[in-house]
């Protein structure tokens, strides 16, 4: 099945584009998707420990099961707002 993967900030710079479509087996979890993305983009390893993930615009744990067409985002630690 295919899922959309959106990449932001440091993750986007490593991947090189803002959106990917990744093919994973039916019933995969976020863990399996992240493993596949890291296989495609080994340079993400440096970020992998600090990445948060969202599914369909809500933060989600690694054991979350995915469905075809889901929108996943790679979310490096957020830093909204001013540094004050």
């Amino acid at each position, binding site marked *: 099945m295919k899922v959309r993967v*959106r990449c*932001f*900030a*440091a993750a*986007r*710079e490593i991947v090189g584009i803002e959106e990917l479509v990744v093919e994973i087996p039916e019933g995969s979890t976020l863990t399996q998707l992240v493993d596949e993305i890291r296989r495609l983009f080994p340079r993400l390893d440096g970020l992998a420990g*600090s990445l948060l993930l*969202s599914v369909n*615009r*809500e*933060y989600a744990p690694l054991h979350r099961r995915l469905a075809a067409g889901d929108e996943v*985002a790679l*979310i*490096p*630690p*957020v*830093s*909204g*707002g*001013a*540094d*004050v």
Partner: protein
Amino acid sequence: MFDITDQPLFLEPLVNAVRRSSSGAIATFLGVVREQTRGRQVRYLEYEAYREMAIPKMCEVADEIRRKWEVDEIAMVHRIGRLQIGEASVAIAVSAPHRHQALAACAYAIDRLKEIVPIWKKEVWTDGEEWVGPAG
């Protein structure tokens, strides 16, 4: 009023958006780009948002505020794109019947925004650049 914009931010539209006849206080916060961070000279900051998630997350922060304090209205706008020193990156206004609720809710709004709203900044210094997390 919750928004992400690439245009300069001003407090006045937010203040007007939250003004109610029941309000005795309007607290505001304006985050601005400062010239030095952790001893390094900033050239500019580059902000990026996951817009489709960031705006619902701003609403979620507002919902949390309403469960904690008696407030009238809440407005938050974050700017994205390249910001120069002194420019505002985020503006918040909270109206409430009394000042203590307005001030506490406004402080909570910026703290919580930084925790859960997916917006990032890249610091570009005179001698390098880095995406910065919440500890930055």
